[in-house]
């Protein structure tokens, strides 16, 4: 029981660390929150709404994302897209990620 709980907690921490990069990587074109959530899930990364939406707002506040409200199918939706600053940061983050993966591969192989 305690082991399962510990595993879940560690997996949660690991996922939390990659969500920022995952979201930034998928927002080259505008997406609204729910569509991004589904896109990430289709690619194999299940993210809780309670984690993704506040994260999008935080990234926008940091200037890495931009958002705009659009009216579609009589429903307003907030679309997010990577900002100019976010575009500059993304390659650096990808490089950092590649470095982490390489180091961890060495450690775990």
């Amino acid at each position: 029981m305690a082991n399962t709980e510990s595993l879940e907690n560690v997996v949660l921490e690991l996922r939390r660390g990659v969500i920022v990069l995952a979201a930034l990587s998928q927002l080259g074109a505008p997406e609204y929150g729910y569509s991004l959530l589904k896109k990430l899930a289709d690619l194999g990364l299940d993210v809780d709404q309670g984690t993704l939406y506040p994260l999008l707002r935080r990234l926008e506040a940091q200037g890495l994302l931009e958002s705009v409200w659009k009216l579609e199918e009589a429903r307003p939706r907030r679309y997010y897209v990577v900002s100019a600053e976010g575009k500059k940061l993304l390659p650096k983050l990808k490089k950092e990620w590649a470095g982490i993966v390489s180091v961890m591969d060495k450690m775990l192989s």
Partner: protein
Amino acid sequence: MNLIDRYVAEVGKHLLLVKGRKDIENELRSTLEDMLEERAQKAGEPADEAMQMELLKEYGAPGRVAETYNPNPYLIGPRIFPFFMFILKIVVAAVTLGLTIATGIQIMSASPMTAVDLLSTIGKGLLNIVSACIAAFGNLALVFALIERYAPASEFKMDEEKEWDPAALKKEPEPDDVKIWEPMLAIVFTFIALSIFNFNPQLIGIYYLDGNKWHVLPLLSEAFFRWLPLMNIAWVAEIVLNGMLLRSGKWTTSTRLVSIATKLFQMVILGLLIAGPSILALTPDSLQAAGVNDLEALNILETMADKGLDIILGLAIFGSLVEIIKSIYKMVTQK
């Protein structure tokens, strides 16, 4: 207002202090409608209230959802909490000390005082201390809550965040360190003893009710008060010693020497009290005057009181001796 609107409004109630609340509400509504639409399409039937219920249940309680949007869930966050505690301790200590001294002065200036007056003044003093400490805590918490809310981490940096030096790490607590409350308590109680024995000695006695009136039977005889000037010197020395400890924050050779001298002086006084005439004013005569009539019992009581007092004074001498030996040992082993 449908169920989703009510749910969004409920989440909004928890976000009153969060920036962009309306925006969050609109985005939440839009997301929930998207999710509901998708479910209805999968089920092949229009969305009904049961479907909404199921969706909202899965999405989570409004309070918990709102919590994820709150970037600063603390009244006083971990960044400034240690500083808050540091200031709080100083403020509470200062308020307690200040009001205790004020109460002591009030007791001294109201001489002569009855026991009821004394108890009522002490009671009021204690209540004042408690309410002043609670008020100080509240005000301080308010100030720190405002700092937490309006001073962003980037603009408000604590000293240790600016430039941290590992050399500043606190060393192991030194055995010579003095806990600040110990000398403070000693000063307060010595001050109280000084004021009662010198200004309101009539309060020291046995209280008994005769009819509707309280009477006091003096406990200490003239023989005791003959030594009062010497005791005053010992008490003043005790206050001076504790003042020195408060100032230096640790035991030094000089404070230990003062402590040994004070303890020796106290031993001499205690010895004089044992050797001299009885310091108890409780005699068979005075007890009889108070209404105790069994003569044999009175004699036994007087003997027991005298012997008991001698034992107590003897123990006090022994205690002082132990303290002196401890001080000498620490002085010798001091690095």
